[in-house]
Structures are given as C-alpha cells and as structure tokens.
C-alpha cells in the first residue's frame, strides 16, 4: 500500500517543544508532581523527533520498557486523540478520517489519530506495535496508520486467561516483537537496560502505590485533577524520571495528609472514575467539586494491579503484567477490582463516561454496575464521546449528574 500522508513538518513537534519549555518555566517557579509528570511526558514526545532514537506508534498497553531499552521512542495513539481533544483541535482530524470513510460509530480517539496521521501532523514512525488489549479498534488503528506511512505493524495477541501456557505465548510474542524491531531499526535489545527498566518500574510503582494508598485518607490529599489521565505514566514507567515523578506524588500527598490539607476542601462525596476522562474542555468536574464537594479520589486506570516484577526474568514479568491487566481477560475480573477499590477508597458513587465506540468496556457495563451495587456503590453511565464533542450536551449531563449526586 502506498504512503498516503501529507508531507510537511508536524505540528506535534511544536506542541511538545512548547509544552516542555512551558513546563520548565513553571517548574522553576514551583515544582509540583503534576508539572513534573507532564514535563516528562512532553520529553518523551520530543524524543519521537530525536534522530538518535527510532520511533514507534503503539496502542496503550504495550511493553514500553522493551522499546525504551532498544532505543525506540514510542507513543500510543490514544494519547494523540486525547492530546488533540484536550487542546480543542481534534475536530479537523477526526473529520478528516470520517471523510476518508472511517465510521462515526467507532472510537474517536482512534479516528482522531488516523486523521492526524493523514494530515501529516504525526511524525513518521519506523514501525508500529498494536496489542489486542484493550481493544480491537486500537490494534486496527495502528495498522491503518502503518498503511498510511507504508510501515510494518506488529500485533500482539493478548490471551484471555492467565495460565503458564498463555504467559509462555506472550513471552514468545515479545521475543518475536524484539526481532521485528531489530529487523526494522538495526537496534538490539540490551538486556541489562531492560532489567534496569524493570527495576525502575518496580521502584516507581512502590512510590505510586504509596501515593494511591494515601488517597484512601478522608478527606483525600488529591483533588479530582491531580491524577487525571495518569495512565500516560505507562510511557515513563521503567525510567529514572518515572521514579522521580512517582516519588514527588507520594511526597506531595504525604505532606498534605500530615498537614491536614484536603485535596478538595470540604470533601463530602468520594467518587471513582471508570476508564478514561472526558478529554475536551468541560465543566463537569468543576461542577462536581464546587456544587457537591464531590472528589474523584481514584481513577480506575491508575490502579497498580500487578505485583513487583522479577528483573531476572523481565520478559516473563512484563508478560504477566500485561495478561493480568484488568482490561484483559474476563470483564468480571475488572468489575471485581472496581468493587474492591470502591470499598477500600470509601467510594460513594462511580462515574462511567461509557465512551461512545468503546466496545470492550461498553459490553461489560452491566457487570460493572452489578459488582458495584453489591458493595452499595451506584454508577452513572454518561454515554458521552470523550473526544468528539459535536454531540456533547453539557446541560443534559449536568442535570443527570446533579440527580445522581442528590441520590448519593
């Protein structure tokens, strides 16, 4: 298939450059965990343009530690959709994809990234990697973006059950992925670097687990936005910078708890956010905090589900982490995790944006509702497209959320 990408310098490079410069200045004024986190993500973005690195577009859950250890800078495509929506400029891109025949029934995160690739605003990758977890759409999107650039895509099949067989199968796929990367970039895996990445990953997760434990305090030390979209952390997990970011969050939350500073002063209700946030600018979180003193104390996606990884067998450790992800395997496992978190965090209610076009989650929403109901936690499914705001009706959602909050 011939490359069909408009040429020209990417707007994304400017975006990351400005982001990093802006954050550096802010950090000089005052260092916060959130600022440092965004800075490090921005630096990963800049690396996509660094000639010293090879580059890859991926889906959200791939072993970035392996890519980093091979000198491959990588960003997941859902991040692009979220970033453009957050900047209020996603529309021309998803509309470009729609104009080319991509259905509005699909996920707008993916449609936006495909449109951005068509518009030539994403850097040309050396290769692409897609995993079937969390969804078919992501794997298909990277494959289509690969077609646009005339680059190969490696697909990882993530098994459903956690067994020795399935772990072995994942490890074998990782080995083939490593060969795939070497064949296309000439870069080889540095096992020592990978082991170091696993150790950094463990250290970062220890701090993050402590930080999240602190969020169980009532009132919580975090507000609804402190850990918003923290899933992007997967890009810096396994790096020294990732450890520093986690430690900053831990220290910040610990200090607030020790000093009795609430993330949301006057916190009355504690909320669990299911899956992704709404990415474009909206007033819902502000309304929840201001009018109801309702605090999103935990995002489901931020929870660290895996055990400490064994750096002596890094591929197996990464395979286990991926197969045991709550988004993989039976949805009942994910629902049970939500219920467990709801109890541990003293959650009063859960918000599920139920992103339009998200099949893997939309197909399980009743399981989520029932599992949470068993522990006395009601759920509201917002039925909103988290990226495409054309059908967004804030007034309607406010009314529904108000009714939900009154019920709590």
């Amino acid at each position, binding site marked *: *298939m011939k490359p069909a990408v408009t040429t020209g310098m990417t707007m994304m490079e400017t975006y990351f450059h400005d982001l990093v410069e802006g954050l550096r200045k802010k950090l000089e004024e005052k260092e916060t965990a959130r600022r440092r986190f965004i800075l490090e993500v921005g630096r990963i973005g800049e690396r996509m343009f660094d000639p010293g690195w090879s580059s890859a577009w991926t889906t959200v859950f791939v072993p970035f530690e392996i890519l980093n250890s091979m000198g491959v800078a990588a960003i997941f495509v859902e991040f692009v959709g979220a970033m453009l929506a957050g900047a209020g400029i996603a529309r021309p891109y998803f509309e470009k994809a729609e104009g*080319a*025949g*991509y*259905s509005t*029934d*699909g*996920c707008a995160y*993916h449609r936006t990234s495909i449109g951005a690739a068509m518009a030539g605003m994403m850097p040309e990758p050396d290769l692409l990697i897609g995993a*079937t977890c969390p*969804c*078919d*759409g992501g*794997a*298909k*999107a990277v*494959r*289509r973006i690969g*077609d646009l650039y005339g680059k190969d*895509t490696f*697909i990882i*099949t993530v*098994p*459903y*059950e956690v067994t020795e*067989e*399935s772990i072995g*199968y994942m490890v*074998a*796929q990782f080995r*083939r992925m490593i060969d795939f990367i070497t064949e296309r970039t000439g870069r080889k895996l540095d096992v020592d670097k990978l082991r170091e990445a696993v150790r950094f990953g463990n250290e970062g997760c220890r701090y993050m687990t402590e930080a999240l434990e602190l969020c169980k305090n009532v009132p919580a030390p975090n507000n609804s936005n402190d850990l918003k979209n923290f899933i992007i952390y997967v890009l810096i997990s396994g790096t020294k910078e990732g450890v520093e970011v986690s430690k900053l969050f831990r220290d910040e939350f610990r200090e607030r708890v020790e000093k009795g500073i609430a993330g949301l002063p006057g916190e009355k209700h504690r909320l669990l956010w299911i899956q992704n946030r709404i990415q474009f600018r909206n007033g819902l979180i502000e309304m929840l905090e201001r009018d109801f003193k309702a605090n999103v104390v935990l995002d489901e996606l931020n929870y660290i589900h895996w055990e400490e990884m064994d750096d002596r067998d890094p591929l197996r450790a990464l395979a286990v982490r991926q197969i045991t992800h709550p988004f993989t395997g*039976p*949805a*009942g496992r994910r629902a049970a995790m939500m219920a467990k978190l709801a109890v541990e965090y003293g959650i009063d209610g859960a918000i599920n944006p*139920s992103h*339009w*076009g998200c*099949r*893997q989650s*939309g*197909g*399980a*929403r*009743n*399981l989520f509702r*029932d599992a949470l109901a068993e522990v006395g936690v009601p759920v509201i499914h917002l*039925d909103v497209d988290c990226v495409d705001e054309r059908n967004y009706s804030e007034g309607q959602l406010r009314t529904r959320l108000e009714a939900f909050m009154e019920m709590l």
Partner: protein
Amino acid sequence: MNEEEAEKMESLPKAGWLCSYTPIEILHAAGMLPVRVFGHGGAIRKADSYMHPNLCPYVRSVLDAALDGGCGHLEGVVFVNSCDAMRRLRDVFGSYVNLGFNHLIDLPRGRSDGDVAYFGRELGNLKRAIEKCFGAEITGEALGDSIEKYEKSRDLYAELNDLRKESPPRISGTEMMRLGWQIYTTPPEIWSERAESVLNGKKAAFPPPPDGGRRVLLAGNMIHSPEITEFIEGCGFDVVYDDTCTGGRFFEMPMEDSGDPFGDLARAYLFRPACARMMVIEERISRIIEKAKEFGAAGVIHHTLKFCDTYQYDAPNLKKSIEEAGLKTLFIEGDCTLGGFGQMKTRLEAFAEIL
C-alpha cells in the same frame, strides 16, 4: 429430512457456537451436534440493559434471545476470543445466562508457528473441558472421523459453488445460502447427503434461462439470515460468490493430515480465508478481487454489521483497492434485522443499475 434423521438430530446433545473460527469438529467428535447460534432477527428488547447499544447487533441479538430462554436447547456454548464483542458476550453469558458449559477459546491474530502451537493447545483445552463437563471421551479416531465428515461437506460445497461460475449461475446465491445454512443445525454426514442430491439434480437439469441479474460478489462479516441474500437477489442481482463468515468462508479450510489432528485443525483454522480480525487486509483484498474475477462478478456488495470495528476500520482501504481493480462497490451496514435491510432497497437497485 426423514423421520430417522429427525430422531437422530433430536437425540443428540447440542453445543452452541457463534464464530466461524470455532473448531466444530471437536464438538462433533464428542458426540454432540454443533448448532450455530443466531439470535432472533428482531428488535432488541432486553440485551441493551446488559450491553451498550453500540455493540455488535449479532452479539446483542444472541444475548437477547438467550435472556428469553432461546438457548434452552443447548448444553452449553463455545465462544471464541475473536473480537471485543464476542469476548464480552462470553462474560455476560457467564453472569446472566445460566448454561452448563461456557467455554472461550483464545484465537491468535497471527499465523506464526508459535500462534499455531498456542491455538492447538487451546483446542486441546477445549477437548479436555468438554470431556470433563460431559463425561464424553473424544478419541483420536472420532476426531479424525469428524474432520473427514466436515471435509466432505466442504468439498461438496465447493463443487456446488463452481456451478455459480456459469452464466446465468446454475444455482442461485439464495439456494446456496439456504443449503449452506442447514449445516449449522445438521450433522455433516446428513448435510452431505442433501448437498450431493442437490448437486446431482443441478448437474442433470437444463441450465436456467438468462435472468438479467447483475453478477455480484457478496463480502463482509456475517449475513444473519438467508433471506438477506434472497432480498439482495430480488433487487436485480445474482450473488455469484459469497465471502462472508456465514456463507462461503465458513466452507473453506486448508485442512491437511499430518497425524496431529489438533495441530492440523489449528493450522487450518488460522489459515482459512481471513476474517478482518486477523489483520491481513492485503490478503482479503486479493481474495475478493480474485474471486470476483473467477466467478465473473462485476461488483462487490460489502456488508458489515454495525459497530463492527474490525471490518469498519478496513472499509476505506478495502473500498479503494477493490475499486482500483475495476470493480464497482456498494458498502452497506446491517443490524441483524430484516427491516433494516428493507431500507436499503433503493441503494441496492441503484447499484444494480450502474453495473
């Protein structure tokens, strides 16, 4: 069907299956009748309370029927981890539809030796799960026999299919679909007898008179009822080849005998003409173009169920490539209801006119 056949079928325990990657030979070898589950073809009543309405209409229809006891005749259902919707259907079945057996097989996206080996082990796991649940031993001999019986059915289907190359086709798309459909509820040995009889009858009969139908290839994921093919042909087409998972693609499998039936089945299923979920769009494009040429189709009607990401993400590239090969295309979406198809009559008729 004669009385003896009807009795035999009635007496067999029935195992439900949905995806065309289900190794039905293993179910048959367990002494069960593999029955494909289709839902009800009507409006969804209950399933939308369990799954988001923007999920695969086939999956929701199956769930809708099951919630109303529509799977009561089944001992259990074998699911395949073929796509998000199927995976979630299995999860929801496990919680809200009370069947004795609810097994999911992982299905790799790739076709490397490692993928084949893993899928082979998955098939072995299915065998053991059936044996444990039903107390039935699946012997190598029984499995070999089942493989042979389904192979014979597939060969007969291919012979019948060749009659569609004639102009006008000696057997219509609707007849093929109706006959093919019967294998979803019939043991292969009985189905083959019927197919043989149809084949002999068609060969002996005079060729049909010209019908003026525009020759088209029907591609896509699934057609939920033979009435859909009948409806399409009623709009002025001869459907001369069917590349859907409920039609021709189900009957094509590169089966080989290496003495390891599970390995052979795994390889054959993974290498059969690909569903869009297998991520080999180039192969799908080539196949559609080659088959259209081989069967003399001037156009391609590509039918996708709504909300099917695996097919929808392929659609733009597929359309472009097929049209570049000189074939006209019509891309339509269905929702597993006949009413939904009725609304496409004007588009189908307009497409017939441009061919």
